């Protein structure tokens, strides 16, 4: 386990790296009371002096790849859970090196040789869940080797279940019932949890008792592996991204009729010079379309950017493993099968048009309709908001909003009669203005050289328009279509 930060973060300033929650923070920010996993807003309130940076998992995967490669040179078949966290099966390595301490020491020494300045934490325990928390509890540079896994887990706070349970709702209920640690939870009768919380309750109890998820014993038919070959080696990141997302989509499409989804995938690429690279990724929950395509893309990006694939990619393969029937449990009130199908269709549209053309939007603050929307590429992390949504924004253009908003200011001709709009030019014809509202003043940021402007809603016989007039120029800002 290795704590990653944004590589472009300034080293001499307090820094907070976030997605919805805090994923990393500098020392001075942690001293202000911020903790990892804390909601972003809470952390920003505690450390208003910190520079807030958005987490970039692709870049983290690129930085983490050499670490995984080095560890894999010592112990084969490492499984990357997320950038910064990997699981290493040590049974064979213990036989080879003599003891668990020796294996942990070898791994630590190899990471030190790499010259990694970020402290790394190593934990050894029975099963992925216990090992992950053993690493979290370990002192940097001092591996924690757990001999009694059940006892170790029993002392952990209930929050350790958050990652595996995908949220805090059930954990909050447990706390309300007086259950504070995994040990408290493990002491409850499993059948009581099953009747009160269903499958998630049993899963939580199993993890708390040190019984990690059993690997599905089903054999993996080889034909479930998906593969793409390329006559012209893929070198550009765009081409690699399309291939990664398409192949991930194809894999889950094949698994779908079988009612399973993988917990583990092996990504293999062959370079133009014949070199082959391979990496295993693991997830506590069965991979969804989006989660799998992200991981395949991160891994390929890491290899391509570190020049690990000389001459480009000629073959890409994904082999699923550890298949689980939990992956395709359909919900009762939302049509999850439709959601899955829609995600596949959108991934195909993205492959045809490119990632910048398939978009989702979120509301943010602003006075003009174009400002009040922040766009993100579909399937990728959301673009951070530029304007606070909950701020009052006096003078904002009122509802109803125009249904069409040009992406750039669109010049328009307006004819004025004693300061009142009389005609507007639409294409080649002039339309009389039947009535209008405004002007509403829009004050520009004078310190940034912006001019003041006036807004008008113009109504003609063919529709209504939102226009901005600045000096002697007028622009179309929206069509009430």
């Amino acid at each position, binding site marked *: 386990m290795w704590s990653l930060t944004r590589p472009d973060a300034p080293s001499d300033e307090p820094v907070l790296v976030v997605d919805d929650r805090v994923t990393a923070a500098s020392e001075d920010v942690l001293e202000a009371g911020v903790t990892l996993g804390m909601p972003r807003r809470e952390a920003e309130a505690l450390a208003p002096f910190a520079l807030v940076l958005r987490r970039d998992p692709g870049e983290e995967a690129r930085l983490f790849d050499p670490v995984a490669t080095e560890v894999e040179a010592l112990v084969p078949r490492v499984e990357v859970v997320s950038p910064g966290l990997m699981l290493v099966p040590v049974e064979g390595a213990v036989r080879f090196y003599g003891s668990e301490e020796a294996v942990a020491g070898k791994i630590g020494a190899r990471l030190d040789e790499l010259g990694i300045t970020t402290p790394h934490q190593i934990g050894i325990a029975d099963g992925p869940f216990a090992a992950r928390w053993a690493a979290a509890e370990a002192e940097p540079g001092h591996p924690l080797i757990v001999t009694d896994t059940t006892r170790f887990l029993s002392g952990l706070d209930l929050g350790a279940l958050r990652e595996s349970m995908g949220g805090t709702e059930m954990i909050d209920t447990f706390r309300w019932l007086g259950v504070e640690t995994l040990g408290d939870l493990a002491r409850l009768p499993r059948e009581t949890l099953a009747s009160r919380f269903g499958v998630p309750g049993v899963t939580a109890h199993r993890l708390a008792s040190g019984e990690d998820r059993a690997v599905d014993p089903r054999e993996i038919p080889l034909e479930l592996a998906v593969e793409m070959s390329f006559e012209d080696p893929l070198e550009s990141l765009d081409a690699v991204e399309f291939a990664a997302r398409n192949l991930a989509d194809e894999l889950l499409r094949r698994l779908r009729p079988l009612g399973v989804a993988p917990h583990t995938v092996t990504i293999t690429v062959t370079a133009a010079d014949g070199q082959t690279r391979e990496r295993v990724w693991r997830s506590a929950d069965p991979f969804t379309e989006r989660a799998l395509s992200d991981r395949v893309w991160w891994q390929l990006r890491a290899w391509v950017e570190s020049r690990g694939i000389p001459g480009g990619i000629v073959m890409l393969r994904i082999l699923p493993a550890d298949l689980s029937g939990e992956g395709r449990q359909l919900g009762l009130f939302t049509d999850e099968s*439709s959601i899955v199908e829609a995600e596949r269709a*959108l991934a195909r549209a993205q492959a045809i048009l490119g990632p910048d053309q398939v978009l*989702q939007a979120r509301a943010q603050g602003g006075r003009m309709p174009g400002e009040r929307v922040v766009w993100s590429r579909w399937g990728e992390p959301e673009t951070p908001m530029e304007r606070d949504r909950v701020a009052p924004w006096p003078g904002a253009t009122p509802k109803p909003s125009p249904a069409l908003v040009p992406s750039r200011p669109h010049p328009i001709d307006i004819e004025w009669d004693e300061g009142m709009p009389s005609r507007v030019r639409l294409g080649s014809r002039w339309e009389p203005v039947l*009535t209008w509202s405004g002007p509403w003043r829009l004050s520009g940021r004078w310190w940034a050289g912006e001019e003041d402007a006036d807004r008008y809603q113009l109504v003609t016989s063919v*529709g209504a328009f939102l226009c901005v007039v600045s000096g002697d120029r007028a622009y179309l800002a929206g069509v*009430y279509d």
Partner: protein
Amino acid sequence: MPIEGLVTGRTIVPAELVVQPGTGLLDLQPGRVTELVGDPGSGLTRLGLRLLAPHSRLAPVVALDTRGWISPEAAWETGVEPDRLVVVRCDRSAMWAKVAAALLEGVRAMYAEVPAGVEDHDLRRLAALARARRVAVVMRPMSGGLPGGIAHLRLRAIGVTWEGADRGHGRLTRRRLVLEASGKGAAGTTMRFEVEDEGTDAVRLVSDVVVDQARRAVG
């Protein structure tokens, strides 16, 4: 001489024909194409987005945008779930049919602006695909109309009026849109009705639904 009656060639039909949830003219039917015809400004983009709203409660819905102008804010105001609206921008008519076909393979409802230059046979293929996949589709041709046999229902904007603005005072608050429905979805007749919305709620019918009687028949 007193007039006892006047033959106008028109009849009034129940309003439920237009606004009945699930079956009305203003509800998208799975596997059917609804065509919206009218100039920019006639109010059809908001209407088209509003038609997606009930479908967005179940699964993602798509707006296929040829100009890059569609505002999600207007869609959210009409009831489309913010997390479920995906805007796909495609300004190349050569690619449009391919993209639309890819989307019809998976989404349940789509509002698609149709750029000029899309071949008739491509549009027919898309309508067949929508039928086969039971996708509810709204098509808004950017110029002219769709070729015959594609749309199950054709809604043409006859006129739009806005209320609220008064020579510099007030603001736009409410609009009334006069629509003419025709095609199989309108039982083979031509109906005219007026709807109203305030931007933040569902469309309301504010006029009688008037049906033109057939002038000619073949039997």
